[in-house]
């Protein structure tokens, strides 16, 4: 029986999103977690990716100009009344 090699750091960094999305196979998930458990550098890396995602989720995004918004609300009112 061929045992799959341990996951390398280089392989792990390609799989972070798959890991976080829960789309890794069970075997790869185990390899990923086994690697993380023994590698402080990859633990830092995973933490940073999570930090990026959390930060992006809290960025405010540009939106339409207030005047455009008012015009739209007026148009909605006009259309629906």
């Amino acid at each position: 029986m061929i045992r799959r090699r341990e996951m390398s750091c280089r392989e792990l960094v390609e799989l972070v999103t798959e890991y976080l999305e829960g789309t890794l196979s069970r075997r790869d998930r185990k390899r990923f977690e086994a690697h993380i458990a023994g590698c402080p550098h990859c633990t830092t890396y995973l933490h940073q990716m999570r930090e990026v995602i959390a930060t992006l989720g809290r960025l405010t995004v540009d939106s339409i100009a207030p005047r455009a918004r008012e015009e739209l609300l007026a148009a909605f009112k006009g259309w629906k009344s």
Partner: protein
Amino acid sequence: MAERDPSGGAAERSDPELVAALRSGDEGAFASLVDAYSGPLLRLARMYVASDAVAQEVVQETWMGVIRGIDRFEGRSSLRTWIFRILVNVARTRGQREARSVPFSSVADPSGDEPSVDPDRFLGPEGRHPNAWALAPTQWEAPEESLLSGEARSVILEAIQELPPAQREVITLRDVAGWPSREVADALEISDGNQRVLLHRARSKVRTALEAYFGAVEPTAP
């Protein structure tokens, strides 16, 4: 300013409730939709047209399309996806008029090799620790709050601006706007797998940009 999830906003009501409210002329429901989605819509529009001003017009036209079309909405996709598709149609038409049209499918193909981390950062495939870090990431000396303001924030925004359009759109919708993966894939008409690849590449580049900004790397002990 659009918030990620405005309280009492569009994101908290079911589609049938929202559609019924819109059809009955509920202004609050329409306003909450406009506030929740105009930001992401604007960013996507910007991909097709040459200026912020035209992107604003595209979003405006999209909302007019929503007003006119809501009575015909059949609920076969989510309301959000439906709105998004209207935008893509409007934006493509405008983009063609401006001769700057880039079909999304042509930029959304994630084939080709694009490593998440510079390969030089790793040891070779031989030796005791094959493909392990040679130049490892170190913790960013920054509380999360500080990533949201000042220079670090600019670094993040610039990194997103510099992404290829498909990567920029996926990370904008998934991580900035907080859409679920299935909806992003549907709206952009790409597979779930492609969506994940684009998202991963985009996130990796934002991380790399922050790492460069913090100078947070150190050689691993041999």
